[in-house]
């Protein structure tokens, strides 16, 4: 199988879906000739023209609102939000309009749109271009949220998102655009709500999202060399969430660490830990640990920024604590 970058995988997904369905179009800032600052969309405007690869003014609420109306009337917009941090700008259109329209209309109106944006720190971009804000949208009923963890995942999830009749927000990790992974030539889709068990293990479960899947994989390697067998799971979508797979693993290993790059407080890690706690409590041999980004705005200085996100060494160290039976956070 060929290896392609995550960026190429997203580009392929969009191109395939735009060829398949002429109602699909891309709208956002510098998406056409520029192909976005990350060059993810390069080449698409040549094939599909500026009618379907639409450069907008710098007006996130405006083009987001426009996409909602377009989606309600028969198209499938892919909104390109240059940075995940700009989610705040489109909140009313995304959360008050797109997320609620199907419900408020009693099921009469659909809003089949995709917001493709990104997350991830350690690009030295400081606090307004480094956030991982997927928990904000996952909190709103009516929105689906996908977090691809590789080129393969990015392509399959994007194609599914475009075909979904609900608003979907996809967060790509902007540090992974050049990461290569095997991606089949032939078409495939990755269904939402089906977690991927990347590595089977018996002693501890590491649940990771987006680039934290890699972090968990590396931590599992470290642990394996010490005789600890770690299972690694990627939920792929956090809405819908494949609880069944997560609970099955938690019951098997009885120890769980949830790793996500969003801020730790009130975030994805807490939500997943809480569900495991509620539904697998009598199988747990240790508290379910959350490992998120530090609850600080992302700092600019590399010396500071690098310590704000979970690392393989940190995850492995926490896993060792759980394995040893040491009291975690005991008062």
């Amino acid at each position: 199988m060929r290896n392609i970058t995550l960026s190429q995988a997203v580009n392929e997904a969009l191109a395939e879906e735009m060829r398949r369905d002429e109602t699909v179009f891309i709208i956002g800032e510098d998406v056409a000739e520029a192909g976005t600052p990350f060059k993810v969309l390069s080449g698409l405007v040549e094939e599909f023209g500026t009618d379907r690869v639409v450069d907008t003014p710098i007006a996130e609420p405006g083009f987001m609102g426009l996409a909602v109306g377009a989606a309600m009337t028969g198209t499938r917009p892919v909104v390109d939000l240059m940075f995940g941090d700009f989610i705040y700008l489109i909140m009313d259109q995304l959360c008050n309009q797109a997320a609620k329209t199907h419900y408020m209309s009693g099921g009469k109106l659909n809003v089949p749109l995709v917001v493709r944006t990104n997350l991830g720190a350690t690009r030295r971009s400081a606090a307004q271009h480094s956030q991982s804000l997927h928990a904000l949208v996952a909190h709103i009923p009516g929105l689906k949220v996908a977090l691809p963890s590789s080129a393969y995942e990015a392509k399959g999830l994007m194609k599914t998102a475009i075909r979904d009749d609900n608003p979907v927000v996809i967060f790509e990790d902007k540090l992974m655009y050049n990461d290569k992974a095997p991606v089949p030539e032939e078409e495939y889709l990755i269904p939402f709500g089906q977690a991927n068990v990347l590595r089977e293990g018996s002693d501890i479960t590491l649940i990771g999202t987006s680039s934290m899947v890699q972090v968990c994989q590396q931590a599992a390697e470290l642990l394996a060399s010490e005789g600890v067998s770690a299972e690694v799971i990627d939920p792929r979508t956090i809405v819908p969430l494949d609880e069944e797979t997560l609970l099955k693993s938690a019951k098997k290993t009885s120890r769980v660490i949830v790793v996500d790059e969003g801020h730790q407080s009130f975030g994805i890690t807490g939500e997943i830990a809480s569900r495991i706690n509620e539904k697998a409590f009598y199988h747990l041999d240790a508290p379910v640990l959350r490992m998120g980004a530090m609850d600080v705005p992302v700092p600019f200085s590399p010396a500071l920024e690098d310590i704000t996100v979970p690392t393989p060494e940190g995850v492995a160290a926490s896993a060792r604590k759980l394995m040893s039976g040491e009291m975690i956070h005991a008062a």
Partner: protein
Amino acid sequence: MPHEVIMPALGMAQETGLIVAWYKSPGDAVKSGDVLFEVETDKATMEVEAQADGFLTQMRAHAGDEVPVGDVIAMIGEDAEAVHTEETPAGTAASEAADLPEGHPVIMPALGMAQDTGLIVAWHKAPGDAVDAGDILFEVETDKSTMEVEAGAGGFVAALLAEAGEDAPVGETIAVISAEKPSNPLQVSRSGGARAPEPAAAPAPRSEPEPARAEAPAAARKAPAPVRSDGGLLASPKARRLALEQGLDLTRLVEAGHPQPYHAADVEVLKSLPAKAPADAPAATRRLVAELPADGFPGFAAWAAEHAGLGDGNALLAGLAAASLGRDSATVTVESIGRTSVHSVPAGPLGGISDADPDTMPDLYLRDLRMSRLSTVNLGAEAAPVLTLTRSGDGLSITLECASHHLTAAQAVSLLSEFAGRMEQPLRHLL
């Protein structure tokens, strides 16, 4: 067609409005847009306009009345004549103050927080009855409890404006007490009163569907509470579940000195512990029995109580037993039927015996089973030697049980012989 003037709902979740003033009188011509009345809600005071042209008739609520929103308070008719057609429906409600006898109004009291209405369970007085201020006038049920409410004023029951079984909003007048004996005491029900005439308006206004309550997570609701037979020890949920399923006691890990907190792996350690031996039984025990033809103690106890002021039989037994041990002082626990006492026995006269701290580890136990039907005991050793008294015909049987490390054989023989002698002839030994 006459137009209804209703108490308007002017705010979200507003239930009643207070009529501050009427700007038109019955019979007055009104035009749509004229200010009809002023209403006060929890938020503000507002002027309410007429919604139709005509003449104000059938005014049913007056300045000062608190009226539920949606209730009809007047009509706007096509001619002023209608003012004379104002009819009082059979069963007048409280809002028609003008038709009520004069006197002290009794209101439905607000008895709890956030209570909107009260259910009248019973009237304790009938219309026309004389009543004192402190008499119970009625019984009211709220969501919390049922209470009796006093009349609050003396006189005569001039009107009862709600029937037993009816709910009345708090603050609403439900009875009137007049100073003079009423010639025509009134008894009406609220339901027959001047509510909005269409029956549809009768039940709870603004009824909204009962929202389905979010259910607690199934696991939290259905899982049986784990039985905490193990006190406050620290163990993971999984370790506790495994122990419960396998009938294992995690406290045995504590006794074995295994460090907490316990995890699933420690349940394996627990399983490997040796089976629990019969509780703390030392390998060798001693058991000696003495038989006495007569029990000298009752006579002695009677004498001691009368002549020495020593009324505590257990303390006397403790003194005799301690003396038999041959020590300077001893602590003796006496267990008789229904009573356990611990005595500190110094050397010297029996009068020196005092109560000891119940938690003190005794040097000797004395079980007094003379009042029971037991004749022979073989209970094994305790933490200290045990002397057991049982009846034997007219006489007394004394059993000594102890572990071999408590007393040597000679000490055991000596203790029992000494004690048997003292029980047979207590006075002699005392001297």
